[in-house]
């Protein structure tokens, strides 16, 4: 379920180059990080997000993560990483913060510095994480299901957040869990995953 503020942003937006960290889930449950998959996913998501957002936002700019993180404003990107993960954990995850009744996550007024730097009113951040079960893991799961034991297989998810840079507020947030036809390591899969991620984006 995506969360969105009511107002519809009519202004130029920046897209931060997406992050991806993918791993192989081995039989015993230990994840092997895979640089080749992460790299492919990053390239695929980056291309798809840009293509699909270009038709919605005007003046969309893709911002290289490395350059953006270099200066003092890089601290805002790290702040977003912390805020985004908190949203994931507390608004979408298994944990609830008892006093957080409303979706009022924000980066604070300081986000204006990013607006000035990129000449954009909105910034979109995208991060992908996930594991793919190895053949042995799948075989184990099938075997154990016969005796009634469930073994978790790999799962991949991608989250996006749209930040209003004038106020710092997170105005839209969404998480997409990859289905069987949405393997972000492949071009087609990344396209369908991106489409479901951006389904309700107010851009």
């Amino acid at each position, binding site marked *: 379920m995506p969360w969105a503020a009511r107002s519809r942003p009519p202004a130029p937006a920046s897209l931060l180059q997406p992050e991806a960290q993918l*791993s192989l889930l081995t039989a015993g449950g230990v994840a092997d990080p895979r*640089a080749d998959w992460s790299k492919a996913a990053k390239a695929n998501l980056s291309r798809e997000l840009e293509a699909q957002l270009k038709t919605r936002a005007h003046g969309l700019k893709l911002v290289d993560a490395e350059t953006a993180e270099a200066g003092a404003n890089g601290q805002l990107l790290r702040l977003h990483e912390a805020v985004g*993960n908190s949203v994931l954990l507390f608004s979408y995850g298994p944990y609830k913060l008892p006093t957080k009744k409303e979706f009022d996550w924000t980066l604070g007024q300081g986000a204006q510095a990013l607006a000035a730097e990129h000449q954009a009113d909105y910034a979109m951040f995208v991060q992908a994480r996930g594991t793919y079960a190895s053949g042995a893991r799948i075989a184990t799961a099938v075997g154990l299901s016969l005796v009634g034991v469930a073994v978790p297989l790999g799962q991949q998810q991608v989250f996006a957040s749209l930040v209003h840079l004038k106020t710092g507020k997170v105005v839209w947030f969404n998480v997409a869990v990859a289905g069987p036809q949405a393997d972000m390591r492949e071009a087609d899969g990344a396209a369908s995953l991106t489409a479901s991620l951006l389904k309700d984006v107010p851009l």
Partner: protein
Amino acid sequence: MQRTALLACAAAALAAIPAAAEPRAPGQTPKLDTAEAGMWDVFAKAEAEAKRSADLNADPAVNAYVREVTCRVAQAYCPELRIYVMDRPIPNATMAPNGYGEVWSGLLLRAEDEAELAFVLGHEVTHYVENHSIERHTAHKNRQNLVMALSIGVAVGGAVAAANTGPYGDPGAVLDATGSLIDAIYLSSIAAYFRFSRENEVEADLQGIRRASAAGYRGDAAPGSWKDLMAETAASDFEKVRRRDARLGVFDSHPLNAERVQRLEQEAKALPSAGQSGRERHRAAIRPHLARWLKDDLRRRDFG
């Protein structure tokens, strides 16, 4: 009876997992589709963070000094290592599988001379050269696979359900599994890669002292620096710290104990007795930072 036999068998199999591997060749890089390349990728991110960290000591002179000592002990591996001086008042040094390492100011402050620093750097270089991170990751993976295989045996045998002997036998595994889903935990899972086994630590100690000695440093620096750290822990103002074993740094899972020092003393005896101490050079290198580092250290409120 059958169950006891099975458990005994399992314990034996778990204990027997080998971890030894060949040292890496200088300049060796992993193939892109391997777990090692994945770890390099993870640590490239950690390294980028370190480079932007407010704790990074920007003084080129002290960084050049640490680099020079690193190169003397690392020899052919020198060009692929990147060591950063971080201003943190804890005696610590780290080495990641991709050749990125850190030396914390708390360590530079405590080292009596260049020879003691050379030993610690030799220890860290050994973790890199002997592939300890990837070795431990592989050993952990094999162990978990075996636990899984055994729990299948147990389940199919109808003795016990496998649920409780599931794949997450140690906290590292929980971090490995959840780290891929939640980024906040993902970064702390990096710490899991810094935990080496007891065998790895012993190997790093012994090769560290040999590397430092081969570079011309005095051999007795190694046991001395560990002894000082143990004495400092024992003299702490805080009971909690005193009760804890001395460790090198926050990621070190294996205590500095009498046995470890003894092995180093034995090894030191076998090495050439004379050697450089580099005391003056070390003092000159840290002098410009002394005031700030001591101030940082006072903030720990442990006056021992």
